[in-house]
């Protein structure tokens, strides 16, 4: 049963390049500064978490999310600061720990690690890793990260990194450990792995109906029980766009989300998104698009159906203007989130 009082809401950005009103594009630097401002707004409106992605591509501005989060930390008070996600496979777990422990210190314990294998692969050649080691890299690095997270001397050896012998890592955190999620795209193996490490699960639902993830969430809970590990409410992240006017929201979202998906599809060989596909995603799928009421109804349905503890809306896909992005954050915080809670409370009362 969804605990409405403890339900968390986040926003996430992949650092898409922001557009000017005339349709021209801002620079990556301007786009980064815009994210800092949006973090500030989100905090003022009481949004629980902001997540910033890590990409190494021309269409995204952020390759070092912790640096961006550190700047957001300086202008905010309560909002949690997450990566969405940190591509652990091509990173050094020691550096990952150090960066997050630093962020955690300067933000009064608001850092949140989200580890993933990443849905992009640009970081592999960039940092000298072989894609064919995709699974092994993540497994090994997660194993080391898990040791480091205990904040005790670490003795460890593996294939992809020099061994550690009784090494300490610094700084230590005030809470004694970094809050850690694993971002999962729907691989059952990843679900079981997350349960085995006792980490929290955030599911990336970026296409199709949320309904099909129900058995995956059951699998997470069953695996945690089998392995005698702690169980946490599951989080979900999905794309969306909110505007005051329903038709306008759909129009902006279609243009931008389609452009975003098609551009990625181009390098991966998948077909461009059709209007039928898009409409299906916004009506019953995993795009949360429309006016605040529409989006609230759809988020409430997903939260209830999947018994979630947290919902993160990915915003800013494609090239949206400052006005579109900021208005979306405001509507999400001031209209959608309270309305989702209201719908869920009414549902609970009726049960």
């Amino acid at each position: 049963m969804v605990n409405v009082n403890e339900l968390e809401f986040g926003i996430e950005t992949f650092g898409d390049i922001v557009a000017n009103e005339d349709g021209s594009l801002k620079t990556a630097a301007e786009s980064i500064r815009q994210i800092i401002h949006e973090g500030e707004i989100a905090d003022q409106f009481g949004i629980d978490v902001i997540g910033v992605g890590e990409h190494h591509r021309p269409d995204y501005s952020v390759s070092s999310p912790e640096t961006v989060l550190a700047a957001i930390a300086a202008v905010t008070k309560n909002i949690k600061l997450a990566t969405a996600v940190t591509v652990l496979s091509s990173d050094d777990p020691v550096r990952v720990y150090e960066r997050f422990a630093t962020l955690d210190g300067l933000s009064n314990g608001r850092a949140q690690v989200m580890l993933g294998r990443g849905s992009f692969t640009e970081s592999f050649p960039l940092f000298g890793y072989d894609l064919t080691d995709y699974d092994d890299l993540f497994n090994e690095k997660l194993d080391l990260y898990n040791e480091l997270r205990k904040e005790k001397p670490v003795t460890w050896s593996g294939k992809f990194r020099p061994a550690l012998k009784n090494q300490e890592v610094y700084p230590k955190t005030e809470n004694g450990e970094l809050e850690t999620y694993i971002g999962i795209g729907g691989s059952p193996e990843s679900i079981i792995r997350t349960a085995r490490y006792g980490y929290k699960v955030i599911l990336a639902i970026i296409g199709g109906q949320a309904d099909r993830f129900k058995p995956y969430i059951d699998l997470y809970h069953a695996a945690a029980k089998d392995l005698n590990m702690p169980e946490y409410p599951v989080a979900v992240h999905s794309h969306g766009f909110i505007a005051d006017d329903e038709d306008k929201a759909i129009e902006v979202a279609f243009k931008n989300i389609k452009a975003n998906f098609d551009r990625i599809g181009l390098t991966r060989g998948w077909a461009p998104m059709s209007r039928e596909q898009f409409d299906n995603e916004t009506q019953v799928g995993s795009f949360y698009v429309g006016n605040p009421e529409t989006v609230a109804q759809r988020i409430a349905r997903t939260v209830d159906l999947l018994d979630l503890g947290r919902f993160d809306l990915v915003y800013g896909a494609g090239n949206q203007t400052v006005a579109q992005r900021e208005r979306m954050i405001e509507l999400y915080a001031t209209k959608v989130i309270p309305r989702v809670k209201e719908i869920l409370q009414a549902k609970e009362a009726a049960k």
Partner: protein
Amino acid sequence: MTIKRVGILGAGKVGIVLAGLALDAGYTVRISGSGDVKKIALTIKMLVPGAIATENTDVIANSDIIILAIPLSRYQNIPAALLKGKLVIDAMNYWWETDGIREEVLAPDTTSSEQVQAYFNTSTLVKTFNHMGYHNLQEEAHAAGDPKRKALFVTGDEHTAVNEVAQFVDTLGFDQVVHYQLADGIMTEPGSPLFGASLSYTDLKDVIDHFDQTEFGKKIATAKKI
């Protein structure tokens, strides 16, 4: 041959979705992953209850049709002799994110399914289920005649085998656009306008019939001439 027992090699996203569809259609389903059965037992129990989680050898020995749903770069991990005399569906594609560099996985001059067939040279290969996204496969299976029904491309060199697979695809909830040439599998591989698309019979047939007019078709045609 009557197909009653379906064997799936590969317990990833595609393998699990196909297992679910086959169960819904009333087949007995066996499924295997890489390595120990224990690794997939809980997953199968939770995600596709009713399917039998087992080893490759058991899947192959006790199924009327075998579906290859493993990363393309790993098909040679399965001894070709194991599949001798079997009707095999190739649901695989070259996918650079899991398979790595194409030249290391595939020879440049033929399609992926032709190479898989050449390896499993005592089996009959039919290519299908490869071009529609796994969540579309899961969500868009419909009974014959349903206006929302989508279609899959089914192709292979052996007529009888292709027809049997087409019939099987029908029972799983999809119309079929059928060709009798395994090499035509290229029409639905990554880069094709059909890869990742979920289309009705009419729309799928239209693209297939006019494939040489698509950008991808033109590129393939040019590459062949060189």
